[in-house]
């Protein structure tokens, strides 16, 4: 009896292993590592939704290389520790590529795990440090902080002629990176920085820092952090009667910024790559239409579209190389020139940096719509 049971058990294990390996050959697994809950949930869910939409569209057309695509999502909450756990989980699940994460900090924490296991990764993280390792697995689908910093500095000094500049960031690797890069770029143009400070994200009460800045009479307050703090900073700035302009870096470009700032949102300047609705490309319009049709709302921001471009480039790579060998795909992507993306032509440098990128300054109007004031 015992022996028979054992036999049965081994045969079950053997068949299930066989089924598993058959399954594995039939599908290509794509991982999503994004902050699906937590402070940046709004962005994370949008990225997750976007990837699922594109994958469903590919599957409806027969998949890639005759194989179906499967999405495996992991919630990193925008936290580095959780990101490391997600990286292990997705690698163990056998994904070929990972889309994400949204924040640079969470991306950086997972990067090495993907590199060591030969898993491709594409992220919208803009921290310059993301490409410094020159991992062959990593592809940035957005543009680095230093590019945005140069644009911001030029806008401040040459266009707006600000004489007294206050700069605030939070402690995240992205926001400090962007603020430091902006300080560097401003110094090159002889900009006068009167204040450079940090706030703790999520603290909600920024009146103490703002009161200190008020005593320094700034022309402009620049915030390089995320929208959930940016909206409150703007509201409290107006509340305290600080007359300076408020300029937010790219991560302030989110509908929640306007909601938090309320009536104070009007007159805020935001610096980012073009917003989804003004992208001139047909594929962009089609993607937005499909997304709206499926989820009943627009993607949270441009970051979803940038990540989708990363995904599309990788899928294109699989098709062109007719292979699921990540090294081969990576080599192909590094030679890719001007692949038509949703957010513009895609070209990757050898360190995984995406080349190009045009920034714009928007002024938030009374109805929370954007007006392009400088590009």
């Amino acid at each position, binding site marked *: 009896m015992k022996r028979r049971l054992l036999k049965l058990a081994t045969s079950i294990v053997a068949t299930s292993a066989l089924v598993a390996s058959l399954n594995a050959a039939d599908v290509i697994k794509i991982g999503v590592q994004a902050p*699906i*809950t*937590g*402070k940046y*949930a*709004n962005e994370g*869910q949008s990225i997750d939704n976007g990837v699922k939409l594109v994958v469903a569209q590919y599957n409806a057309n027969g998949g890639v290389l005759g194989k179906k695509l499967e999405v495996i999502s992991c919630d990193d909450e925008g936290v580095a520790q959780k990101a490391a756990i997600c990286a292990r989980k997705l690698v163990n699940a056998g994904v070929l590529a990972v889309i994400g994460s949204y924040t640079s900090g969470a991306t950086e924490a997972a990067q090495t795990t993907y590199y060591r296991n030969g898993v491709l990764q594409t992220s919208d993280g803009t921290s310059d440090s993301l490409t410094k390792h020159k991992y062959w697995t990593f592809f940035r689908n957005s543009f680095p902080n230093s590019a945005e910093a140069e644009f911001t500095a030029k806008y401040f000094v040459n266009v707006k002629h600000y004489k007294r500049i206050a700069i605030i960031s939070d402690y995240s690797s992205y926001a400090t990176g962007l603020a430091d890069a902006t300080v560097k770029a401003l110094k090159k143009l002889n900009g006068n920085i009167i204040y450079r*400070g*940090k*706030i*703790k994200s*999520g*603290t*909600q*009460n920024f*009146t*103490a*820092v703002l*009161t*200190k800045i*008020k*005593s320094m009479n700034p022309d402009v307050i620049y915030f390089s952090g995320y929208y*959930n703090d940016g*909206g*409150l900073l703007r*509201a409290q700035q107006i*509340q*305290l*009667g600080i007359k300076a302009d408020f300029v937010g870096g790219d991560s302030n470009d989110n509908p*929640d910024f306007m*909601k*938090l700032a*309320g*009536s104070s949102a009007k007159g805020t300047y935001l610096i980012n790559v073009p917003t989804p609705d003004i992208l001139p490309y047909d594929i962009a319009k089609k993607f937005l239409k499909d997304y709206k049709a499926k989820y009943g709302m627009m993607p949270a921001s441009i970051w979803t579209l940038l990540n989708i471009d990363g995904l599309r480039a990788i899928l294109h790579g699989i098709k062109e190389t007719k292979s699921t060998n990540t090294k081969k795909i990576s080599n192909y992507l590094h030679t890719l020139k001007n692949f038509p993306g949703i957010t513009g032509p895609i070209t990757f440098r050898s360190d995984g940096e995406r080349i190009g990128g045009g920034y714009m300054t928007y002024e938030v109007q009374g109805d929370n719509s954007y007006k392009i004031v400088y590009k």
Partner: protein
Amino acid sequence: MDIFLQQLINGLTVGSLYALVALGYTMVYGVMKLINFAHGDLVALSAFAGLTIYVEIFGEGKNSLFVVLSVFVITALIIAFVGVLLERLAYRPLRTAPRLSAVVSALGASLVIQNSIMLIWGPNMKIFPSNLFPSTIWTLHGVVFTFTQVMIMGISALLMVGLYIFINKTKMGTAIRATAIDQDAAKLMGINVNRVIMTIFIIGSALGAVAGLFIGINYRGITFDMGWMYGLNAFVAAIMGGIGNIPGAMLGGILLGLFNAMISGYISSEWAETFTFVLLVVILIFRPTGILGETIAEKV
């Protein structure tokens, strides 16, 4: 000078919120010798419940005194009920158990509430409408203060004075003080200890609910995990003032808010939290039972 006064207002506003939350910690500790870690999450829950009540029952855009008052009263009642439920389910069965079991139960209750908020309202930030309170702003010699700030400071002060009178002048207050000194002796004197503890949870939770609504109205963005941050600060405030001591919690909260504002205003915002905790350590070295812990012999 106006900058100093402005920082004073900034500090008093957030300090009043800490004080309101700290009262919940300190009253429970005073009577039960238990740190109610779930208290911060009740504060977060009240912000979410209040927002839903406002939007669903009264409808967005209405901001008459009656509506605002009803939102406060209904929310406080709901949170008080949840507080009593919490005591019934998570703490009463463990009243005679070792102290550690109760602490673990409190941490568990905190997670249950926090995750329930996330499951009911979702992980995204919810945003309070901006017109619940009038957006009046006064400027006096360069010092700016808003209607909301005045309300926060005024109502918190009123509630704290009311609580002080209740504890010191009423029969129930006397029973609470007696239970805090010695539960068994209080029982022998014919005090219904269960009722005293229930009262403590009702008052503490209701005060926390008022703080939660103020947080929502003043800072507008609320997240399911925000209770942790306010809870931690209020807990520190309670210890600073002398845990178990009601005027101590009020003083601790206000001092904590002021320290934070002054340090970020005059030294560095990066170091505000570090310095605050250094200060806490210094206070505890010189006065191990907190600022007011020794001068008043009776707890609560």
